[in-house]
């Protein structure tokens, strides 16, 4: 940039004090609307939500690179369709946290209910506690890291992306999986149709090392995990496989 341009460039003031939304005083719709009203170049990048008390659809449809700290537990679909923003839930999340997330990151400090990260296309979802059934169902590119266990039918029909589970998995892990990578440190109660254990090659160790680092997990080694993926026998209908569907 030329010196003359620098002098005329608008001065951007970054406001570090959090913009606070107390859901015991304003409606959820007012908060979400404020989130959707953000324009490019917004200067208030630290947002905080108080008293969510299990509300549904908290911080759904965020589009900008801001951080949102939700102080408490949330209900259904928190952070759904998220793009670019970093949402931290200082509590537990109800069903469908980060559903259809596109990019950005969601951190859940407690547990997550069923279908966490369902159909997620990108970004990262990190759950410190357990995630219940159908975690990562139909995931399409999202990276999900779960510190505890996942419930039954996790990564059902998972298409792409990575699911990392530090604990155990419930029944039918990876059922009808396509091309997502599953990294499991504990044991799966059972594997779903067409899901098999696969060789952990050096490139997978590298991928996992990066995922763990981005999730802020430092006390676990990639070598402790097994990799699972698709046996690719159900891709095309074959009458001999009818029983497996």
């Amino acid at each position, binding site marked *: 940039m030329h010196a003359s341009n620098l002098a005329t460039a608008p001065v951007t003031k970054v406001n570090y004090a959090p913009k606070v939304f107390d859901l015991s005083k304003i409606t959820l719709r007012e908060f979400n609307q404020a989130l959707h009203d953000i324009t490019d170049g917004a200067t208030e990048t630290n947002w905080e939500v108080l008293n969510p*008390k*299990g*509300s549904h659809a908290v911080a759904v449809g965020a589009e900008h690179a801001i951080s949102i700290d939700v102080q408490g*537990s*949330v*209900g*259904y679909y928190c952070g759904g369709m998220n793009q670019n923003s970093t949402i931290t839930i200082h509590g*537990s999340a*109800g*069903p469908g946290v980060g559903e259809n997330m596109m990019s950005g990151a969601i951190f859940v400090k*407690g*547990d997550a*209910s*069923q279908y966490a990260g369902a159909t997620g296309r990108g970004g990262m979802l990190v759950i410190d506690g357990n995630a*219940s*059934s159908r975690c990562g169902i139909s995931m399409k590119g999202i990276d999900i890291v779960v510190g505890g266990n996942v*419930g*039954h039918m996790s990564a059902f029909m998972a298409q792409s992306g990575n699911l990392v589970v530090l604990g155990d998995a419930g029944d039918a892990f990876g059922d009808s999986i396509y091309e997502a990578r599953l990294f499991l440190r504990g044991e799966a109660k059972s594997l779903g149709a067409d899901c098999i254990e696969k060789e952990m090659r050096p490139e997978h160790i590298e991928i996992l090392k990066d995922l763990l680092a981005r999730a802020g997990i430092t006390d676990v080694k990639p070598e402790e995990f097994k990799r699972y993926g698709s046996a690719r026998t159900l891709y095309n209908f074959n009458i001999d496989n009818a029983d497996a569907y």
Partner: protein
Amino acid sequence: MCGIVGLFIKDKALEPQLGALLSEMLITMTDRGPDSAGIAIYGGDAKGHGKITVQSPNPDVDFKGLDTDLGAKLGTKVSAIVKSTHAVLDVPAEKLEEARAAIAELRPDVRVMGSGEAIEIYKEVGLPEDVVKRFDIAKMSGSHGIGHTRMATESAVTTLGAHPFSTGPDQCLVHNGSLSNHNNLRREMKRDGMKFETENDTEVAAAYLSSKIAHGENLGQALESSLNDLDGFFTFVVGTKDGFGVVRDPIACKPAVMAETDQYVAFGSEYRALANLPGIETARVWEPEPSTVYFWEH
């Protein structure tokens, strides 16, 4: 949808607040089901006394003189407390069955909601807030209680189609989900002599548990059996005179959250229902596992 709440009190000091806490929990779940609402409260069991909760579409006519008529028929003193469309009749515990038969004869239009030594059941068409106000639930004390707000799927929106369903003494059940083999089970149980009031799937589940209990199983065993015999989606919360149980089907798509402190065990379809309970910030909060029976007893 449908919303379920339940509260099992461990600390007696909290018992006077049961009705108020449960009412608030149920109102929070209103948008899970606006069709009808109901609540079962267990409490106040005085030795030797039995309670029958009855309902009538014409309470002014049906409840007038019901206590004296029933007393004369049973040859004992009967008292009644009327609350809107419901009345709770106090009869000697050993005469409960006799009294139920007598009510059917004396007032054919009156329906029995439930009976036992501790249970009272109130249910009507309408929103939870209106239903709990109508029966002044917030003032009730008790040891445990269950509430339900219904989004009807399997049968009509009527008082009898509202939950909780009670098919045995001091037993009740509420349900979120839908059963697919209820017609078959109903036919089988009818052959065994059980009577049904509705075409509702949940009534079949309640009757199924009552029938297992009548055949000698305890509630825990009956709930285990239900996992094998009931087909469909269900999260059940059940109450007995001293106990409170929860079970979810193996798919477990119907939501459930539980919380436990030194003072209580609480159930909610969603965390929202639990968010205002005392001490919830430090409670152990978890999601009940599929195909797993949970049961607490006093």
